[in-house]
C-alpha cells in the first residue's frame, strides 16, 4: 500500500461518524465507534436484522442462561449445514439406504466426519433444548413482567412445540440408516404411537404407510425428516425469535431493567411465599434484611443449611445402608414388589406425610429433614422384617421351570 493512498479507516473515525450530515454505512464492525454505527450493522445486514439494537449486559451472563437457547440455535444451524451434503449422498430406498450410509461412512471423503457432526449435533440438540426448557422454567422466564404487550406464555407453547418437533426429527432420522437398530426402534416407536386410544392404529398406518415397516415407511420418514419437519421448525424458530423481541428481550431482561422500588421495603427474596401471601414475587417485610447491618445470606445461610443437612444425613447412613443392601438383595431374589411397596410407603406416607404435617404446624423448613429420617426409619424397619421373614426365598419358585439352550432360528 503506497503512502499517498487515503487511509480508508480514517473515514470512520469517531469524529467523522458523529459529524452532522455525514453517515457512512458499515456492513459490520467488531468495534463500532458509535451507537449509530453499531445500529447500522443490525439494520443493513440481513443476517443480523432480527437482533435488537441494544441488549443488557446481564442477558449475556453465562451463569444465568447457560446460553442454552443460543446453543440450540447453533446446533440447528450445524444440523442444517451438515444435513445438506448428506441429502446428496443418502438414497431413501430399502435396497440402497444401508449401503449409501455405509458409503458415507467409509467411501466419501469427509463423509464420516459430516455424518458424525449431524448425528452428534442431533443428540446435543435434544439435550440443549430440554435443558433450555428447564432453564426457562427455573428462572421464571415464561412469566410476563411489567412491560406491556407481553405474551411470554406463547413463547413457552411455541418452545414446547419445537421440542416435540426436535424429538420427532430425531425419531425420523433414526430410521434412515435402515439397519436392525433403526428397524426395531421404529417398530417399537410406532407401536407406542398405535397405543393411543381409538385413533392409534390408524395413526400408525398413516405414519408408516401400511401395516409393515417397508419402503412406504422409509420414504415417509425421509420426507418428514428432510423437508416437512425442518420447514416447520424453521417457521416456529422465526416466530420464537420474533416473540422474544416483542416480549422485551433476552434472558434476565426484567432483572437488568428494573430499579429497586423505594416505598414498601421489599426484600431481595423471591419466593413462592411472596406470591402466596402478597401481591408481589418479592417478600415484603418491615425491615430490609439486606441493610448495612445484615450479613450475606449467601454463603452464611447456605452454609448453615448444608451443615444441618450433612449431619442429619450422616445420622441416617445406617438406615440408608440397610435400604440399599436389603432392598437390592430382595429385588435380586425376585421379590420386587415388596421393596417397591416399601419405597412408596416411605416416600408417600412417611416423607410426604411428615413434611405436610410439620409444615401445617408451622415448623421451619429445616424440619423437612425430620421427614427424611422418618422415611428411612420406616423403610429400614420394613426391609429388615421382610428379610428376616424369608418370604423372598420362595418368590422365584412360581416362575416357569429352569431353562436350557435357546432355539436357533431355522431356515425358512
Amino acid at each position, binding site marked *: 500500500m503506497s503512502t499517498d493512498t487515503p487511509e480508508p479507516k480514517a473515514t470512520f473515525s469517531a469524529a467523522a461518524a458523529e459529524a452532522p450530515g455525514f453517515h457512512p454505512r458499515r456492513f459490520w464492525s467488531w468495534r463500532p465507534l458509535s451507537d449509530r454505527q453499531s445500529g447500522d450493522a443490525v439494520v443493513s445486514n440481513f443476517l443480523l436484522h432480527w437482533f435488537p439494537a441494544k441488549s443488557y449486559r446481564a442477558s449475556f451472563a453465562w451463569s444465568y442462561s447457560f446460553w442454552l437457547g443460543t446453543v440450540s440455535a447453533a446446533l440447528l444451524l450445524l444440523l442444517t449445514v451438515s444435513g445438506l451434503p448428506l441429502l446428496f449422498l443418502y438414497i431413501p430406498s430399502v435396497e440402497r439406504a444401508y449401503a449409501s450410509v455405509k458409503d458415507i461412512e467409509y467411501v466419501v471423503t469427509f463423509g464420516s466426519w459430516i455424518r458424525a457432526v449431524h448425528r452428534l449435533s442431533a443428540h446435543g440438540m435434544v439435550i440443549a433444548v430440554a435443558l433450555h426448557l428447564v432453564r426457562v422454567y427455573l428462572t421464571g422466564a415464561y412469566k410476563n413482567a411489567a412491560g406491556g404487550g407481553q405474551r411470554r406464555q406463547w413463547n413457552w407453547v411455541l418452545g414446547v412445540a419445537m421440542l416435540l418437533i426436535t424429538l420427532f426429527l430425531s425419531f425420523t432420522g433414526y430410521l434412515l440408516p435402515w439397519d436392525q437398530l433403526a428397524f426395531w426402534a421404529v417398530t417399537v416407536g410406532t407401536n407406542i404411537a398405535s397405543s393411543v386410544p381409538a385413533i392409534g392404529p390408524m395413526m400408525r398406518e398413516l405414519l408408516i404407510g401400511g401395516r409393515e415397516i417397508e419402503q412406504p415407511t422409509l420414504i415417509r420418514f425421509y420426507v418428514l425428516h428432510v423437508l416437512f419437519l425442518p420447514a416447520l421448525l424453521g417457521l416456529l424458530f422465526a416466530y420464537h425469535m420474533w416473540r422474544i423481541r416483542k416480549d422485551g428481550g433476552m434472558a434476565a431482561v426484567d432483572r437488568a431493567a428494573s430499579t429497586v422500588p423505594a416505598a414498601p421495603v421489599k426484600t431481595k427474596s423471591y419466593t413462592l411465599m411472596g406470591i402466596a401471601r402478597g401481591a408481589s414475587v418479592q417478600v415484603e417485610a418491615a425491615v430490609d434484611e439486606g441493610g448495612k447491618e445484615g450479613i450475606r445470606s449467601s454463603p452464611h445461610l447456605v452454609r448453615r443449611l448444608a451443615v444441618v443437612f450433612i449431619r442429619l444425613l450422616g445420622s441416617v447412613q445406617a438406615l440408608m445402608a440397610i435400604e440399599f443392601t436389603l432392598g437390592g438383595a430382595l429385588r435380586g431374589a425376585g421379590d420386587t414388589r415388596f421393596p417397591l411397596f416399601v419405597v412408596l410407603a416411605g416416600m408417600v406416607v412417611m416423607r410426604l406425610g411428615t413434611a405436610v404435617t410439620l409444615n401445617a404446624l408451622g415448623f421451619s423448613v429445616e424440619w423437612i429433614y425430620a421427614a427424611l429420617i422418618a422415611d428411612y426409619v420406616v423403610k429400614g424397619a420394613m426391609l429388615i422384617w421382610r428379610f428376616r421373614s424369608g418370604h423372598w426365598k420362595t418368590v422365584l419358585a412360581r416362575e416357569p421351570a429352569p431353562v436350557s439352550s435357546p*432355539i436357533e432360528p431355522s431356515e425358512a
Partner: protein
Amino acid sequence: MKDRRDFLLNLGIGSGLAALGAQTVASMRSLVPNVSYDSPTTVKIGMPNDFADGLKFLPDERLFVFREGNTFHAVSAVCTHLGCTVRAEALSQPEVKTVEGQSLRLTHRFLCPCHGSKYGGDGSNVSGPAPKPLAWYHLSISQDDGQLVVDLARSVERDFRLTLA
C-alpha cells in the same frame, strides 16, 4: 354495506379458500394407501413332513409352528407389548397343561428381548409389560399342493389344532 362488489369479493375469497381446502384434503387423502404392498397374510410355509416333531421357527413370518404327532398349531412370535420378536427357550422338563379344554404339551417358554416380557408355552403372558397372550394363527392344508398354510390375519382360540389324517 352489501352490494354486488362485496358479494363478488367474498365469492372470490370463498372460492380460493375452498380450492385450497380441497387441495389440502386431496393431499392428505393421497397419503392413505389404497393398495397394500405389505407381504401377504396367507402364506404357504412348506409340506407338513418338513416339520419335525416339536417346534420350528419361521423368521420371515415371525411364527412358531408346533408339531406333536399329526397335530399342528402356530403361535405368533410378535410380542404383544411393542412388537419385538420373542425368543423360544426349551424347558428342561416339559409339562402337560389343559388350555381351553384341550390338553397341550408345553415344551418351551417365550422371552422378549426388548422389555423382558415372558410368555408360557401356550403363549399366555406370564410377566413383564406384555398386555395379552401371543396370538395363535389359523393353519390349514393347501388344496393344490398339500402345503401347510398359515393365515396371519386370522387369530384363533388356543384350543385350535390342525390334525392330519
